[in-house]
């Protein structure tokens, strides 16, 4: 089965996170591309985290190692959902909000 993996890391660990997933995701280097900001501030506030959403099979090494990766990257979090059940508002926006984060858009 294929899942979406949704994750974020603290901005200070962005490069470390790129390195950590490079062995699993081809083209890593610009994988953690989604800027995030605290939910309490403006959408143009400080970027505190970077996120990603990618698809992986549950048999893949990345899927098997998600817990270890998250542990390695302090302050990170991840969530998975089968692609057939995925809903952006629920599994990304609401999940982020539950973690105190939202998308950084540059819009005040």
């Amino acid at each position, binding site marked *: 089965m294929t899942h979406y993996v949704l994750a974020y890391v603290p901005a200070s660990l962005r490069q470390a996170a790129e390195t950590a997933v490079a062995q699993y995701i*081809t*083209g890593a280097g610009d994988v953690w591309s989604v800027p995030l900001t605290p939910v309490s501030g403006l*959408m143009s506030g400080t970027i505190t985290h970077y996120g990603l959403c990618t*698809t992986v099979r549950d048999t893949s090494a990345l899927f098997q190692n998600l817990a270890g990766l998250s542990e390695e990257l302090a302050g990170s979090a991840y969530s998975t959902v089968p692609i057939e059940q*995925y809903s952006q*508002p629920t599994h990304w926006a609401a999940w982020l909000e539950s973690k105190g984060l939202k998308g950084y858009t*540059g*819009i005040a």
Partner: protein
Amino acid sequence: MRRTRAISNRFRGWGAASAPAPFNPSSIPGFVAAFDPTASLASNKLWQDASKTTLATAHNDPVRVGVCPWSRLDWTAPSDAARGLLQTDGIGHWWILTDGVDDLYAGPDLTSLVTSAATVFVAARVNSGSQYTIYSTLDSTGGSWHFDAVSGNSHVSALRSSRVNAQPIIPSGSNVEILYRSSGSSYKRDLNGTTDIDTTAAFACGTKWTLGTAFVDGAYSGSTQMAGRIYGLFAFSRILDAAEIDQMRTYISGLLP
């Protein structure tokens, strides 16, 4: 009688051989590029990887590169994480599903091909949310959803309509066909065949489009991307006439489930 029949058969054979080729967007003068998952799939031009070694052929295959079957120009996701998924309804319709987080496709730079005027068709569907407004760009006064276009380093485009007070509501789950026409000194936009913007305001023609980028309203403050389906984008370097627009609308309607 025999001779007549033989001649008749020969003419039938010639007729079949010289039948006009089926219409495709490149048949229209001024065609410059398309992102057309259905046509690219049919000609083995959807790739899962940047090096173009693994074809995307099946439902839920990720797509890193979509090559326009006519111009041979590429539409490319910036990383494997940013790939959309090839999906189908099983009866011949195909699209790219974007996740609303990071999926997008950067189009070819058409600066040398699109200069003073452009016509662009986009066919898409927003999958989630109660409604989306389609009107503008980096505008703090409200939500917006658009197909991004960049000319050089400046965000100016035929696809944008910032500062134009027209904010049609597009319900989620509905297919939408958007037609943009920009002459450089005038701008028109049609949604599902109805003109909702017709202005003499000058909007420079976009020359590099990104598919999947969106700026959505407050209900989706966690996203700057479109969660939905991309059926296609078709760009021309001039203003198409009414008959040509009809041809394209018929073609696009065939792409939609």
